[in-house]
């Protein structure tokens, strides 16, 4: 079963150093700047959901949050990838304080929804990539998996904030390890919530369209 290294309110020293270091690195490489377009920075409990094309995505997103918010916000990552070796697990859990979930699971103890809910129930926020994997296709955004809907049904009081991460697929494409310095912005959009009577598929598509609409340069073909 996935261990959860969640302290009450704070990062470990290692996590703080890692998070400050990575945010500084993100700024040097990408000059990252948040654009609040429909929501405002807040210490409220939230699920930030974003497009996913690169390992750098969550670093960029967290770099846009305040130090205080960052210490209580955890990226959800795939246990199939990050749990593969001891080193990867150490990086993901002990350094980045991410939450590992299994995309394919049989054992109820591995149920990703209950793992994510247990984090929310400690008052913490999540960063979620609802496409479920890094997008390497020509489509701007893959269809969403149902986690976002299930989490919001179970904890409707948690705000769902769409976050469009710009350019990161060009900075650090899948399979590369050296980033090319390019300017990136993260656009935070208006909170979405499940409308009364809205079914799963309709909600997921609406959330996806809300995220897509945040892309500041949709005309670009790369």
């Amino acid at each position, binding site marked *: 079963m996935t261990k959860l290294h969640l302290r009450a309110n704070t990062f470990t020293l290692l996590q703080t150093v890692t998070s400050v270091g990575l945010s500084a690195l993100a700024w040097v490489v990408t*000059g990252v700047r948040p654009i609040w377009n429909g929501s405002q920075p807040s210490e409220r409990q939230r699920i930030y959901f974003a497009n996913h094309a690169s390992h750098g995505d969550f670093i960029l997103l967290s770099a846009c949050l305040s130090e205080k918010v960052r210490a209580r916000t955890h990226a959800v990552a795939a246990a199939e990838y990050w749990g593969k070796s001891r080193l990867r697990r150490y990086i993901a859990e002990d350094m980045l304080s991410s939450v590992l979930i299994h995309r394919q699971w049989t054992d109820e103890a591995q149920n990703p929804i209950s793992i994510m809910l247990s984090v929310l129930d400690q008052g913490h926020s999540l960063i979620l990539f609802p496409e479920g994997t890094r997008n390497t296709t020509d489509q701007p955004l893959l269809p969403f998996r149902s986690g976002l809907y299930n989490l919001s049904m179970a904890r409707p009081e948690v705000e769902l904030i769409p976050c469009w991460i710009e350019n990161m697929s060009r900075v650090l494409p899948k399979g590369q390890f050296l980033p090319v310095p390019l300017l990136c912005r993260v656009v935070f959009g208006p909170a979405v919530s499940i409308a009364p009577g809205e079914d799963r598929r309709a909600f997921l598509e609406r959330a996806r369209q809300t995220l897509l609409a945040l892309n500041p340069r949709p005309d670009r073909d790369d």
Partner: protein
Amino acid sequence: MPPMHETMILVIGLVGVLTTASLVAGILSWRAPKPLSSTLVNLTQRINAWWVMVVAITVAFFFGRTGMTILFALISFAALREFVTLTHSRRSDHWVLLGMFGIIIPFQYWLVWTAWYGLFTIFIPVYCFLLMPAITALNGDTERFLERVAAQQWAVMISVYCVSHVPALLTLNVPGFEGRNLLLIAFLIITVQGSDVLQYIFGKLFGKHLLSPSVSPSKTWEGLVGGLAASSLLGALLSFLTPFSPLQAAAVALVACLMGFLGGLVASAIKRDQGVKDWGHLIEGHGGMMDRADSLVFAAPVFFHTVRYFWSA
């Protein structure tokens, strides 16, 4: 170290101009109805950014050739990052793009620092321009090949090659002007950047006839002529910094500022083609580095070669 006397006059002059600007903006903001109009907010942001730029250049100034080389290498980095962000690239360009940042910038500025003039002038236009498309071809991805290669070369040309001619002024040997080359940089930056501001002011005051409406809605003939005349005069007033006579200084400033104007025009055309208003978001109120440096980029190589041809030994 540059000579103290001229440096002090320069620093006092710049601080005086900026202090006046900040005071005027402060009084305007204080008397204006709240909330402040976006023009006033932008004016204050621009003046504040000017303070930061003057401080950065002054600090580099006191560290001499090393300081200037590092400062302009960083400016090249920021400008190249904006350029590459704006243009089309594909996943297969990853290593060429990395090389532009990781090899071309450091090597070109190392050549400036060691004053290796022969290689400095040909490293990018000969070796990089031939090898970069060769690497792209070897990668085998021919989709929009010419467009990608052209964008990469233009990016390196503008943001690295042209910008590196500013610190390269320190490598020139002008008889009777030894140890004072930093003042040439000050002369170039003040006249060209001053010309931008003067063209803007003359355009706002007297502008009627648009110069190139399809490229830039704000550039007018009145702004250009007034701005160039005023910045030539500024150049003549600053001739005490240079090896030029007042008349020569006015002529050199005129050429540099005309090139600066053309640089701004080309930068506007690129932005228009790419469908953006600013190059980036680095400098609050100014947009990106290239929004501020576009005129300097075109002026620097021509200024460099003018001084080299007519004055250097």
